[in-house]
C-alpha cells in the first residue's frame, strides 16, 4: 500500500509532485543557475584576457579567474542541475514520494556550503591551482575541503535518488520498467557514485597533505585518480544530457524511442566503459605503458563511443518518427524543416545534439587516440573540445529542458518569450565559435591555461603564427556572444520565477499515462531515413577528420 505524503498535482502535466521533491528541485536548480552566472562571468574574463590585443586581466587575476571558471562551471553548475534532475526523474516521473527528504536538505546545504567555501578559497587568491589542482602545487586547505563537502552532498543525493527508486518499486507507483529518461538518470547516478568515490580517494589525502599531515603525494598517482573524478564527472553530464534529449523529444513531439532495447543498451555501455576515460588525460605521461593507454583510452574497444553514436541516431530518430506520424512525411527532411524551431526547448536540444556530436564527440575521440594526443595534449585544442561537450552539449541541453521545466514547475509565464526564442541560437553560435577557434589555435600549438601568448616577459622568445593570434581574438568575440546568450538565460529564468503566474490551462490536462504514439511500422524501407542520412554525414565527417589528424601526426618529428 502506498504511504501517504503531501503532494500537489501539476496543472499542465497531471503529475503528482511530492512537495519535498518540488522544493528540492527548485532550490537545486536555482543554485545551479546562480553558479552558471558566476562561472560564466569568470569565463568571459578569461576569454577577454586571452584575446591578445585586449588582454584584460593581469596574470594573477587571470589564473584566479580561470580556476573559478573551471570549478563553478564544470562542477558546481552542472552537478547542482543534475541533482535537480535526479529528484525530477525519480520522485516526479515515477509519481512517488521522495525518500528521506531531510537528507536531501542536508545534501543541499553541504553542497552549497562546499561550493561557497571553494569560491572563497579561490577568490582569496591562495588557491589559483586550476580546476585540476595537480600536486605538488598547493591550494589552501579550504579549497580541497570545499570540494569534498560539495562531493559528499552530491553523494547523499545519489542515495536519496536510489532510495526513491526503491520506494517507487515497492509501492508499485509504475508498471513494468522505469521510463527511459529515469533509466538515463540512473546511469548518471551510478557514474556519479564512482566519480565521487574517486574524488574522495584523492582529495582527502590531498587535504591532509595541504595541512601538513602527509609529506608527499606522487604526481602520477594523483593524476590517475583525480581524472577518475575529473573525467567521470563529465560522463555524469553526458548521461544526464542524453536523458534530457529524450525528455525534450517526448515533451515537444510526444516522441517514443524507436526501440527501448537499443536506447537502454546504449546507456548500459556508459556504465560499463565510460569510466576508463581517465586515461584520456594520461596519454603523454611517463610511467604508463602503451597497453594501458590503448585499452583505457578506447573505453575498451570504443564501446562507449559506440553507445554515444547510438544515441546520436536514436534521439533525432525518435523525433523524426513522431513527426512522420503527424504527417510530415515529404522527402527526407520535412519532419526537420517543420520542427518547432521557435521553441527553445526544441532548438536548444537540437543544437546541443549537433554541437555535442560534431564538435565535441569527434574531437574527443581524435584527441583520445594514443598517438594523436601527442599533437594536441594541453594545447588550447583541449578546452576547444570540452567547451563543445560541456557548454554546447550539456549546458545547452539543460537550458533547453529548463524552458519547459521552470515554467511548468513554478507555474509561471516565461518572462520574455521573444528572447527565449533566440537565446539557444545565441549561446549555440557563441559556443560553436569558441570551440572552433580554440581548436584552430590549438592546432597551431597555442597553450591552454596561459596568460601571455606573446611571451613578452620571457628571457627567450617564441612567436606563434599570426593566424593563432587572430583565432584567439575570434575566440574572444564568440565568448562575448556566448556570454550574452548565457546571461539572457540566467536572467530569463530568475525573472520568470519571480514573475507572472501562469493562467490556468483552458482544459483539463490529459492523463500522463496516455501513450500518444505506439510502435512503429515494420514495413519495407527505413523508419527514419532522414536521421539515417544525418548519421551518415556525421560518420563521413568523423572518418575524414580522424584520418586528417593521422596525416598531421605523420608529418612531425620521428619519435619512438
Amino acid at each position, binding site marked *: 500500500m502506498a504511504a501517504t505524503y503531501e503532494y500537489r498535482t501539476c496543472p499542465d502535466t497531471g503529475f503528482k509532485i511530492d512537495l519535498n521533491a518540488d522544493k528540492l528541485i527548485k532550490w537545486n536548480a536555482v543554485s545551479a543557475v546562480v553558479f552558471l552566472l558566476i562561472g560564466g562571468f569568470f569565463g568571459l574574463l578569461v576569454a577577454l584576457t586571452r584575446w591578445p590585443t585586449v588582454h584584460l586581466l593581469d596574470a594573477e587575476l587571470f589564473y584566479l579567474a580561470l580556476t573559478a571558471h573551471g570549478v563553478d562551471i564544470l562542477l558546481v553548475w552542472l552537478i547542482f542541475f543534475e541533482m535537480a534532475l535526479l529528484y525530477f526523474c525519480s520522485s516526479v516521473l515515477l509519481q512517488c514520494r521522495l525518500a528521506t527528504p531531510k537528507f536531501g536538505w542536508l545534501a543541499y546545504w553541504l553542497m552549497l556550503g562546499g561550493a561557497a567555501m571553494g569560491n572563497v578559497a579561490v577568490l582569496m587568491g591562495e588557491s589559483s591551482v586550476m580546476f585540476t589542482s595537480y600536486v605538488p602545487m598547493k591550494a589552501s586547505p579550504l579549497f580541497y575541503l570545499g570540494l569534498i563537502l560539495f562531493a559528499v552532498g552530491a553523494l547523499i543525493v545519489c542515495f536519496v535518488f536510489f532510495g526513491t527508486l526503491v520506494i517507487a518499486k515497492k509501492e508499485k507507483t509504475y508498471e513494468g*520498467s522505469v521510463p527511459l529518461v529515469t533509466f538515463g538518470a540512473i546511469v548518471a547516478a551510478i557514474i556519479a557514485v564512482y566519480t565521487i568515490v574517486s574524488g574522495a580517494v584523492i582529495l582527502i589525502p590531498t587535504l591532509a597533505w595541504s595541512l601538513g599531515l602527509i609529506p608527499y603525494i606522487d604526481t602520477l598517482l594523483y593524476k590517475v585518480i583525480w581524472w577518475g573524478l575529473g573525467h567521470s564527472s563529465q560522463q555524469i553530464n553526458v548521461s544526464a544530457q542524453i536523458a534530457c534529449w529524450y525528455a525534450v523529444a517526448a515533451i515537444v513531439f510526444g516522441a517514443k524511442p524507436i*526501440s527501448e532495447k537499443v536506447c537502454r543498451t546504449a546507456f548500459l555501455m556508459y556504465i560499463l566503459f565510460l569510466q576508463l576515460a581517465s586515461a584520456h588525460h594520461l596519454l603523454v605521461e611517463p610511467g604508463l605503458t602503451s597497453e594501458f593507454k590503448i585499452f583505457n583510452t578506447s573505453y575498451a*574497444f570504443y564501446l562507449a563511443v559506440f553507445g554515444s553514436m547510438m544515441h546520436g541516431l536514436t534521439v533525432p530518430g525518435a523525433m523524426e518518427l513522431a513527426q512522420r506520424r503527424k504527417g510530415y512525411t515529404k522527402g527526407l527532411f520535412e519532419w526537420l524543416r517543420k520542427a518547432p524551431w521557435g521553441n527553445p526547448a526544441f532548438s536548444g536540444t537540437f543544437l546541443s545534439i549537433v554541437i555535442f556530436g560534431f564538435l565535441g564527440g569527434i574531437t574527443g575521440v581524435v584527441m583520445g587516440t594514443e598517438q594523436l594526443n601527442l599533437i594536441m595534449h594541453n594545447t588550447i585544442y583541449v578546452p576547444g573540445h570540452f567547451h563543445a561537450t560541456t557548454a554546447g552539449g550539456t549546458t545547452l541541453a539543460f537550458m533547453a529542458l529548463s524552458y519547459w521545466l521552470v515554467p511548468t514547475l513554478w507555474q509561471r509565464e516565461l518572462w520574455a518569450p521573444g528572447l527565449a526564442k533566440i537565446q539557444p541560437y545565441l549561446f549555440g553560435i557563441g559556443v560553436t565559435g569558441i570551440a572552433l577557434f580554440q581548436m584552430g589555435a590549438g592546432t597551431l600549438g597555442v597553450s591552454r591555461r596561459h596568460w601571455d601568448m606573446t611571451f613578452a*616577459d620571457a628571457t627567450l622568445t617564441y612567436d606563434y603564427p599570426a593566424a593563432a593570434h587572430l583565432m584567439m581574438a575570434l575566440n574572444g568575440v564568440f565568448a562575448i556572444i556566448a556570454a550574452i546568450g548565457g546571461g539572457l538565460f540566467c536572467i530569463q529564468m530568475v525573472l520568470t520565477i519571480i514573475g507572472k503566474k501562469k493562467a490556468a490551462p483552458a482544459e483539463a490536462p490529459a492523463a500522463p499515462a496516455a501513450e500518444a504514439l505506439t510502435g512503429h511500422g515494420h514495413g519495407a524501407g527505413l523508419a527514419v531515413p532522414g536521421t539515417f542520412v544525418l548519421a551518415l554525414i556525421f560518420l563521413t565527417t568523423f572518418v575524414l577528420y580522424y584520418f586528417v589528424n593521422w596525416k598531421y601526426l605523420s608529418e612531425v618529428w620521428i*619519435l619512438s
Partner: protein
Amino acid sequence: MAIFPPSEKVWWNEPVERTEALWIGICLVWAMILFFMMPYWHIVGQQNLSNEAYKIPLADQGAESDPSQRFVGEAYEAKVEAYVAANTIREEGDTGIPVVKATDSGDVYMLGRLWDWYPILELEKGKSYRFHLSSLDWLHGWSLQPTNINIQVHPGYEMIFNVTPTETGEFGVVCNEFCGIGHHNMLGKIYVK
C-alpha cells in the same frame, strides 16, 4: 514516450528497427577501426611515445632534508649539470644560457623547472637521439613549437624517448602545463642544424 514507462512490459522483446540495426553494424565496424589504428601505428607509424621511464628514487630526492620537498629531482639536476658541463658548445646571446650538443652516445638532457627549460639543445636533422626529460619541482608541459609535439613532464619521473628531428631551424619549447605565476614566461629552445 520516454518520460513514461515503456508500453511493452518486456521491452527487450521489441524488434530492433532496420535503421538502428544498420547503424549498429556501421558503428561497430568503425569502433573496431578506431581501436585497430593505435596498435597498427605502433607497428608502421613513426610517431609513438616511448614507454621508457624511471622513477627517481625518493632517497635521491632530498628525503633527508625537508620531507615536503621530496619530489625535487636533485639526482636528475646533478645529471643534467654534468651533461651541460661536458657538452656545452656556446652561450645563447647575452642570456648566459648554455647551448649544448648531444653526448657521443646520442643522449640529450633537458629539465623543466620554475620557470625555464634548461639547457638549450643543438641537434642535427635526421640523427636519432635519446631524449631525457624530467622536472625539478612541479608538473610542466613540454611543447615543441611550431612542430607541435606535446609531452607531460612529472617531477620524480625521468622519461626517455627517441627523437629524430626531420627539419632544420629554431624551435621553441613552450610550457603548456600551468605551473604558477611565471608559467607564461617559461620558454626553452632547440636548434636543429
